[in-house]
């Protein structure tokens, strides 16, 4: 192999892809979208308060009304004296958002059959709130009907209120707060990213190979360079494109979230009543400007726990292992995609040939989504060893902690498989790129492999 030539090929491939409009669009749009959705969601949650809804109540059972306490967002109006049907028809005229109509008590089943009417849908929070209260009313009614003395107290005492605190303990006995939820999210995100990148850039290699064959420039190229140099130049060039995109995404997302976060902070100060804010921070109102709002996170207990959990995850280690698995997973699939690309003359013909590659990729993705629920299950274990699924599944298992030997074995198998597949792909590629006019099948690819 001639390193200088490979360098020239890598350079062209890289610049050609990076200067493309589609690359610029995905690189800049995706982080904006992701950040936009995150920040937008947060902003909506923080700023919108549900408008208070007024609900008219016609209670014929007589057991529910005492349980309907007004909340910040729901106001109940007792209309038991009136006819439910007449209110129902004039809801908006009367200024009610909804009507809760409770017919007479069903003494046999010891329950009520309430109906809720509204002109517009009322939203999950409100209906579940009403439902909870109805449940409570019926429960209490049933308990009372047993007529056992002191049952109220017994029931209260029985009611359990356990909160599970989970910790991971390392060998030194140091305890860390662990929360499966955080790990699950990281695991899922990493799994999806690696699946997306391998698929996206693997097929980019394939289309680049097809492009050269389709435009017939390939024979000119292989008269100057060896076909293996051409193939690996292409694969490495596109790997650099992938890394560039990944890096830009991280940087851009960081910048956007940082900037938007700053704007939101200012907005918050504007909106908040200075005196109230100052009081909650324990400073005088004129000192507000000097307050470091990052400290705010620390004052919030949940936030602090979440941050603590993030610190307990070995991020540096995960990033390094992620990159290594991504690199070899990509190399493995990209070399196979290159072999397939060499066998066809246009992108439409790849469908059938691709199946043996897309199936294990999809399988890895599905198992990875399962792995975040059961990271140590045997299917997750074996899939994280099998080289065609291991890049995705191993990364998904990683945040939960994987023994070093498992990572080593999995990586060893992956690299070995890559070497074998790259060797075979190079042979197929060499013959394939100069085959024109005939639709090739896997049988042909096998023949080419044995041919030289």
């Amino acid at each position: 192999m001639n390193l200088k030539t490979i360098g020239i090929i890598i350079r062209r491939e890289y610049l050609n892809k990076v200067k493309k409009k589609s690359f610029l669009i995905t690189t800049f749009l995706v982080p904006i979208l992701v950040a936009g959705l995150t920040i937008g969601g947060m902003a909506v949650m923080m700023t919108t308060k549900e408008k208070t809804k007024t609900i008219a109540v016609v209670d014929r059972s007589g057991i529910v009304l005492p349980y309907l306490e007004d909340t910040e967002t729901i106001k109940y109006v007792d209309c038991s004296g009136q006819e439910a049907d007449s209110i129902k028809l004039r809801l908006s005229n009367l200024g009610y958002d909804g009507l809760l109509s409770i017919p007479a008590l069903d003494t046999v089943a010891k329950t009520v059959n309430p109906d809720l009417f509204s002109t517009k849908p009322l939203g999950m929070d409100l209906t579940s709130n009403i439902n909870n209260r109805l449940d409570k009313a019926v429960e209490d009614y049933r308990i009372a009907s047993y007529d056992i003395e002191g049952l109220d107290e017994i029931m209260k005492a029985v009611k359990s209120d356990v909160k599970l605190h989970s910790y991971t303990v390392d060998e030194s006995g140091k305890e860390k707060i662990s929360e499966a939820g955080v790990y699950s999210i990281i695991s899922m995100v990493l799994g999806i990213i690696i699946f997306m990148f391998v698929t996206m850039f693997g097929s980019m290699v394939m289309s680049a190979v097809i492009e050269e064959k389709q435009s017939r420039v390939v024979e000119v190229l292989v008269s100057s360079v060896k076909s293996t140099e051409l193939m690996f130049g292409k694969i490495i060039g596109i790997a650099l494109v992938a890394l560039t995109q990944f890096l830009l995404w991280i940087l851009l997302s960081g910048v956007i979230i940082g900037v938007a976060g700053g704007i939101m902070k200012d907005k918050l100060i504007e909106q908040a009543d200075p005196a109230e804010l100052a009081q909650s921070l324990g400073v005088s109102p004129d000192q507000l400007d000097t307050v470091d709002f990052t400290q705010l996170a620390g004052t919030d207990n949940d936030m602090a726990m979440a941050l603590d959990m993030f610190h307990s995850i070995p991020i540096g280690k995960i990033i390094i292992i992620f990159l290594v698995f991504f690199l070899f997973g990509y190399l493995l699939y990209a070399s196979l995609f290159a072999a397939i690309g060499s066998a066809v003359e246009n992108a439409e013909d790849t469908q059938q040939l691709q199946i043996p590659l897309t199936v294990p990729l999809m399988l890895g993705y599905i198992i990875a989504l399962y792995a975040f629920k059961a990271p140590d299950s045997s299917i997750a274990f074996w899939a994280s060893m099998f080289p065609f699924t291991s890049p995705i599944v191993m990364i998904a298992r990683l945040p939960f902690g994987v023994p070093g030997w498992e990572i080593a074995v999995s990586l060893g198998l992956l690299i070995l498989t890559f070497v074998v597949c790259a060797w075979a792909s190079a042979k197929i590629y060499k013959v394939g790129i100069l085959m024109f006019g005939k639709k090739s099948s896997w049988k042909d690819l096998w023949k080419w492999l044995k041919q030289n």
Partner: protein
Amino acid sequence: MGLIECKEVCKSFGEKVALDHVSIDIPEGRIFGLLGPNGAGKTTLIRIINRITIPNSGEVLFKGVPITQRDVEKIGYMPEERGLYRKMKVGEQAMYLAQLKGMSARDARTGLKEWFVRFGIQDWWDKKVEELSKGMAQKLQFITTVVHKPSLLILDEPFSGFDPVNADIIRKEILRLRDEGATIVLSTHNMESVEELCDEIALINKSRLVITGGVEHIRREYGNNNVELVYTDADGRHTEVLPREVDGNSTLEAYIAKGVTINSYKELMPRMNDIFIKLVTGEDAK
């Protein structure tokens, strides 16, 4: 000793034999015609010389020593199935191909500019290849084949896709490059251009070498060579075709004795086209 010597080259793809013990000698500084019907094995032989394909047996010598990957930089190849990256700019594309042939960026730029000026296409540099017409793209392709000053130029059907005016430009460039010392292998079905350009040829049919040698020699050797006599008598002008075997002097004397005026007496060279058909099919074209 030729610039390129192929010795007993064999190549088969699975069951199919593409080249069967083919030996040819391509002399330096000449235009060498590689002829043969479709599927005869010409492209395979060219690819073997280019080191795109490795022969099963036999060897290719470049200046007397087995050819290596480094020698490929001294070859310029324009395949029959040719093309360029459609989405790339003309200049970038030409620079890329020149650099793959081992030119430095600076040499490539100077060399390309020279050729662009020669062909009057300087203002194409920043155009995209897909904006070029087929003929324009062919010109660019020719430039990318020759810009690195190859000592061996392999052109497969170089005139296809060119209009007569541009084909003539290319024909003149080929002759100029030959005069500057380049060796040129011309693979074509256009027998007129073989007669006009080639010094030597090799004819391959069904994977085997049928004949190789100087064009003049082969034209004399093969085909039914006749002589043509044109004379004028009282009835006017006559043309007669006589077998070459007859003794020219006595024939002429006999005609002169009849009192006619001899206008011309010349050997009729068979056309390469006829020789080609005769050798490939085993039948006379006429």
